[in-house]
């Protein structure tokens, strides 16, 4: 089942509809409620490989619904430490719990200062309202 619309205060957001949960020099990344709702029920997550370097603003994977495919854009740069196997095996988890069990990857940050350029929840909501 689809989750209720929400944008948790403790996360940082990117205009390409990705979120980051930053913890020291690591971060967990995923897509926002808005992104999963726009796509519809996800049927495939094409993940990066462990150890891969991802660049802020560039695609690190793809998410697909029955009707559409979308790049997943990295909100921060770093090295992939872990891919959420549950999201890859059961992509509908991303629809059900986009900020929890439906996280996509965990990275080690290579440019921690990039975090300053991300939006807080209020700014992201304001950005969505303009769309």
């Amino acid at each position, binding site marked *: 089942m*689809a989750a209720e619309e929400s944008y948790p205060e403790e996360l940082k957001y990117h205009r390409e509809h990705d979120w980051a949960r930053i913890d020291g020099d690591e971060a967990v990344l995923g897509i926002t409620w808005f992104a999963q709702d726009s796509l*519809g*029920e996800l*049927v*495939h997550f*094409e993940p990066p490989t462990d150890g891969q370097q991802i660049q802020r603003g560039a695609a690190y994977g*793809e998410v*697909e*619904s*029955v*009707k559409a*495919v979308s790049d997943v854009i990295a909100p921060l740069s770093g090295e992939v430490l872990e891919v959420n196997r549950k999201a*890859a095996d059961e992509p509908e988890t991303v629809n059900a719990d986009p900020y929890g069990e439906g996280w996509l990857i965990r990275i080690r940050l290579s440019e921690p200062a990039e975090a300053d350029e991300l939006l807080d929840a209020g700014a992201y909501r304001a950005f969505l309202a303009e769309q």
Partner: protein
Amino acid sequence: MQTLLRTPLHDRHAALGARLVPFAGWEMPVQYEGVIPEHRAVRLDAGVFDVSHMGELEVEGPRARELLQSLLSNDLDKIGPGEAQYTLLTNERGGIIDDLIVYELEPTRFLLIVNASNREADHGWLKEREIRGSEVSDRSNEYALLAVQGPKAFERLGLPVGKRAFTWEMAEIDGVEVMVNRTGYTGEEGCELLTMAEDAGELWDHVLARGVVPCGLGARDTLRLEVCYPLHGNDITPETDPISAGLGWTCALDKDFTGADVLRRITADGPERKLVAFVMEEKAVPRQGMPIAGPPGEVTSGSHSPMLDVGIGMGYVPAGASANDTELTIDVRGRPRRARIVAKPIYRREEHA
């Protein structure tokens, strides 16, 4: 910018929260609750699709049958009043201008239900070839069409169960007069209800009140792909012939119709390529236009199968490499992904329900 056409049910779709998208010049619901639950509703119970964008052409007159026999691929003499037939409108090269269902209303009056995107081309093609004693008219704006599909479709509509497919009869559903066409595009039992445009809203409300689930064009596409019904514009086009597409059974090559000589030659020589169905053996969703490697070809339709929970598709490959179980490689945006040719249809209810 061209204004999108709207069916008589547009406001009802919007009120139900449908996601409306442009399709063949129309603004149509692609989904309500979601493609997957809608798809499952049709496979397991009953769903209703607004397909009022489709075209309705009428061919009337003492020589109407003769005109259609010369332009349509299937043998119209195999049906009589109350019956219907899947058939193709072909060009001189044996290419498919459209695939359609012809309904015999009377021995001198036929209804053709055609694809929305080809309505004008079909009408133009037929009109130019009218003969004395036949008249072609486009009646599309007068009608609305609701497809009610699924194993419980007839039960939910209160219509007789178990009648032969490809037949039609007049009936009333909660006071609305409808032509019940026992045809569809999902591989399930069901019907397409033709009604006057002004009655469409009332009919839609009654059908939903009977517990039939509203379904969008997204589910219509995944349902037809699971059972390998070709989509005109994707799998079959004016540049592709019915023999290569596996539609030889719709071509009465013992009669004369446009392009029949070309099709007889392709049949005799054997087609160079064939439209095959395949299932992904690795996680990936094939899409229209993706290249097929080893053997070389192209995906013409691809999606995720909600019933099988894997990527599925159809595409053309060389005839010599079109046998079931042949391994294919689909180029998924630069990533090679393994697939295997399977017998059509991809989904069989008795195996999976």
